[in-house]
């Protein structure tokens, strides 16, 4: 038996291979009052990893506003934040990344990402209602050398998300997908889940009540996901090749049973605490519950259900097998726990108890495998302030290019819109969301494709809107402004769907924090997000940090993904982005502006990622949104569409693409001296395209004037052509052609290449 591995001598090399610095190792010795054994070293290394401890980012995360009148559980307190939505109901929601697992094995990496975030939500006692996901890949069209790999990753991630979400029966109702060279080899897979609960159903991840039994429920433990530190240690011990660490494989069927069993159990008043086993599985769940409960915890690994023989304490404690939970039952209620898990055919084992000595004690049959004070392990990881340095690269070609583009010919502008609409980042994502079950649970009031997902939770009589947003290109050029815009755009998407923004979860995807330029990006972005969240009154309720997102080609564009949730008071307020009737007036709320920098157009049509990025004036933004929301409440708005990537031209075209019937439009964009390309494709912020019945024109204008927001009547809905006049230039496009470019772009890119995909595993 490889018990030898337990007795491995802890050497400085081994410490380094576990990613711990000599100083951190000294700290461990001080906490223990002795040298750690091999298992303990492994436990510290995972708990003090960035993933679990946020040791490099925590000081920055403190800048986020986290309090508010609706916040029931604050960021960092539990697995997910919990927000009051009125009438005794609350929502638990969170976004989390699974970037690296998806880079290695896209299908299973994405699938287990979905499984993990769903567990985070039902751990809180909430019933998961829907998921969103925010994805980024390398380009899937063009002449990138890694085209095939990019397509394989894209198709694999999408089918992994579909596999898990569809099987477990939680609809995937929206999200966003970007394609850019910087994500080649390092895709971003951020998954969001939201659940609903009554205030009194709120479950805590704390080991309360000395003497209470500790249960392990769910899938058996295997050697899954023993990466990094464990992998390195393997080479030292030269175990047989077959014992290599294994990629985590998700089992949505098992998780469905686990979900139903846990929610049923939580109704029975038998649970003192509950925590999912995610990263660092058994280690994290035991020491965190003890730390939160102010208690100790003792478990016996011999009693843990195992999938493979001969697993060492090190392997069991660090395994990342999926679909497992730790439950602290109330003493005397053991049979209730067993009865329910037997009903659902889910493995369940009593593996220990809550103690009063503050120690996390891990027994293995007779011997003690680890003995660590729980609180210091869980909460006293070192915190670092990393060095920051603003990148000095000056971009001088910008102004020159912008000037050149201003003289674009009519025909080149006409082509540019078709090209931009056919860019996979802008194009319809129907190829993707057709693969996701987005109608199960019968709450999807607005299907994928509009500005935000809108979902009705009938039993709570609540309508929720949710979105994820981040323009990584802006963040690469100006992380602070990019962070602000991510929040502003998320709020704008919610506003356009008729919702009032409520709270935020965010996922920070950045590069190696030890590189000062990367850390500068992170700090700037965090401060931008924080400033905007304060302005909107939308606290950050939690989220996730993913660092080291780099491939040999370089670091990813910084991506502070913002997931935002809002409430819609009445079903009559639910609004979509599509024009509804011929003859309706089209109005731009906000100003046409004169900002072409950072635009998708420059990237797609000119191959340039150059700034300056558009500036967002938060006070103006909030007024534009308040005014739009008031128009929706007043019942005058028929459609509202956020104007973002691709600018006004794309926003107008997308407004024409009503899934029921395509519309044309005739608009006049009077913009003084501003060149046509900038008017059409510039991405100035704080703009919303609305359509209204002619009869409501006066009422609409008076509401807009009351709010003191600029607006401009652009034209009207009608015909089968999109006609745009900019000053003296006239452009027109048959709407059928534009729709075809936009609707079929992704299918053409992916389906045209059968070899992009491996034969799916399932």
């Amino acid at each position: 038996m490889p018990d030898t591995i337990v007795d491995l001598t802890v050497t400085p090399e081994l410490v380094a291979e576990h990613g711990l610095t000599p100083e951190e190792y000294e700290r461990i010795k001080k906490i223990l009052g002795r040298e750690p054994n091999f298992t303990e070293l492994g436990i510290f290394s995972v708990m003090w990893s960035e993933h679990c401890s946020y040791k490099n980012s925590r000081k920055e995360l403190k800048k986020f506003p986290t309090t508010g009148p609706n916040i029931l559980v604050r960021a960092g307190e539990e697995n997910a934040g919990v927000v009051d939505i009125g009438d005794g109901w609350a929502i638990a929601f969170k976004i989390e990344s699974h970037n690296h697992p998806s880079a290695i094995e896209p299908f299973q990496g994405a699938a287990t990402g979905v499984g993990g975030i769903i567990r985070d939500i039902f751990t809180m006692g909430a019933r998961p209602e829907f998921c969103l996901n925010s994805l980024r890949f390398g380009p899937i069209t063009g002449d990138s050398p890694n085209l095939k790999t990019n397509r394989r990753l894209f198709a694999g991630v999408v089918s992994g998300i579909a596999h898990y979400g569809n099987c477990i029966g939680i609809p995937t109702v929206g999200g966003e997908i970007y394609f850019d060279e910087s994500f080649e080899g390092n895709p971003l897979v951020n998954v969001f889940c939201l659940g609903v609960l009554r205030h009194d159903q709120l479950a805590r991840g704390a080991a309360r009540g000395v003497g209470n039994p500790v249960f392990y429920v769910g899938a058996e433990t295997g050697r899954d996901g023993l990466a990094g530190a464990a992998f390195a240690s393997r080479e030292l011990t030269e175990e047989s090749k077959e014992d290599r660490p294994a990629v985590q494989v998700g089992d949505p069927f098992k998780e469905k049973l686990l979900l139903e069993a846990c929610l049923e159990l939580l109704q029975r008043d038998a649970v003192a605490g509950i925590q999912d086993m995610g990263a660092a599985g058994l280690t994290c769940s035991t020491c965190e519950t003890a730390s939160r409960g102010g208690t100790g915890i003792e478990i016996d690994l011999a009693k843990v259900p195992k999938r493979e023989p001969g697993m060492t304490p090190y392997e069991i404690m660090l395994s990342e097998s999926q679909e497992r939970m730790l439950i602290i039952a109330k003493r005397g209620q053991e049979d209730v726990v067993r009865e329910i898990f037997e009903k659902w055919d889910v493995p369940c084992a009593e593996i220990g108890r809550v103690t009063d000595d503050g120690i996390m004690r891990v027994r293995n049959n007779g011997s003690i495998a680890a003995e660590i004070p729980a609180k210091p392990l869980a909460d006293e990881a070192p915190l670092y302030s990393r060095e920051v340095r603003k990148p000095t690269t000056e971009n001088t070609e910008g102004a020159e290019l912008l000037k050149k583009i201003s003289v674009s010919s009519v025909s080149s502008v006409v082509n540019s819109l078709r090209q931009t609409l056919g860019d996979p980042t802008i194009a319809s994502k129907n190829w993707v969301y057709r693969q996701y079950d987005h109608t199960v649970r019968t709450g999807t009031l607005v299907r994928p494709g509009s500005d935000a997902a809108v979902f009705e939770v009938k039993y709570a009589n609540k309508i929720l809107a949710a979105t994820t947003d981040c323009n990584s290109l802006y963040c690469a050029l100006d992380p602070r402004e990019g962070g602000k815009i991510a929040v502003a755009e998320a709020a704008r998407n919610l506003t356009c769907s008729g919702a009032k923004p409520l709270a935020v979860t965010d996922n920070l995807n950045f590069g190696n924090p030890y590189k000062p330029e990367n850390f500068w990006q992170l700090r700037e972005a965090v401060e931008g997000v924080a400033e905007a969240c304060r302005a909107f009154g939308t606290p950050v309720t939690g989220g996730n940090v993913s660092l080291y997102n780099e491939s040999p080609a370089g670091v990813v564009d910084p991506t502070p993904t913002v997931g935002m949730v809002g409430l819609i008071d009445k079903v009559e307020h639910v609004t979509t982005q599509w024009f509804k009737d011929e003859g309706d007036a089209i109005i731009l709320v906000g100003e046409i502006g004169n900002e072409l920098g950072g635009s998708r157009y420059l990237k797609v049509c000119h191959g340039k990622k150059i700034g300056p990025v558009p500036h967002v004036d938060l006070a103006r933004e909030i007024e534009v949104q308040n005014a739009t929301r008031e128009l929706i409440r007043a019942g005058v708005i028929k459609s509202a569409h956020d104007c973002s990537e691709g600018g006004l031209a794309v926003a107008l075209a997308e407004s024409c693409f009503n899934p029921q019937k395509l519309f044309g439009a005739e608009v006049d964009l009077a913009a003084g001296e501003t060149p046509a390309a900038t008017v059409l494709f510039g991405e100035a912020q704080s703009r919303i395209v609305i359509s209204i019945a002619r009869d409501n024109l006066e009422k609409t204008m008076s509401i807009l004037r009351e709010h003191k927001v600029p607006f401009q009547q652009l034209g009207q809905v009608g015909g089968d052509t999109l006609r745009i006049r900019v000053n003296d230039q006239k452009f027109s496009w048959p709407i059928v052609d534009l729709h075809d470019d936009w609707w079929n772009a992704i299918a053409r890119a992916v389906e045209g290449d059968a070899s992009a995909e491996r034969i799916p595993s399932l």
Partner: protein
Amino acid sequence: MKFAVIRFPGSNCDQDCFSAINSIDGAQADYVWHKETSLRGYDAIVLPGGFAYGDYLRCGAIARFSPIMKAVIADARAGKLVLGTCNGFQVLCEAGLLPGALVRNRGLRFVCDMVTMRVEVADSPFTHGCAQGSLLRMPVAHGEGCYFADPETLRQLNEDRQVILRYANDRGEIVPDANPNGSIENIAGIVNRERNVFGLMPHPDRAADARLGSADGLKIFRSMMETIASGRAAAA
């Protein structure tokens, strides 16, 4: 009128069926756990969608051995109305209550969309009140919904008017473009020869509220209720 909604491990449209049925005046749905053995007291049985047992071997292959299936089969043979939607349709085929089989979608991908179907048989216990040739709109969401039957079975199905619904375009034409999964002859739903067991891939349970895109699914449930009521009247 009481409907039993069977819950297999991995069923995930049980709650959708439950709330769709309970939204109808005079109808009451109860969940019945797959480990139960009797369906006494129920007027109709619904096998909901989902991924029973993960659908890991073949869709419905393991579910059909669940204890409750003995009662479902016995009650079906005795003439009780049985409706299987999506995964429920797959289970009914595996259990031999309906002919044919559901195989992987022609496009090899899961497909979630709104589809249109043409009512082929208006006098079935499940399509009372739908005019022959009228169109119904309901969501589909499945990876293995391509209906297959051998030529002899197919001939019988057509001869006995067992094909109740076919995928159609907005003009009611049975064309390949309207077929979301490659089902043979655009078949979306069939009944058994005795006409009391109905399976379909689309979701009537998700088409029970016009705000979600369609309320056509209610027609199926209401038709079942009328059939049960007239059966009772005849017996009385």
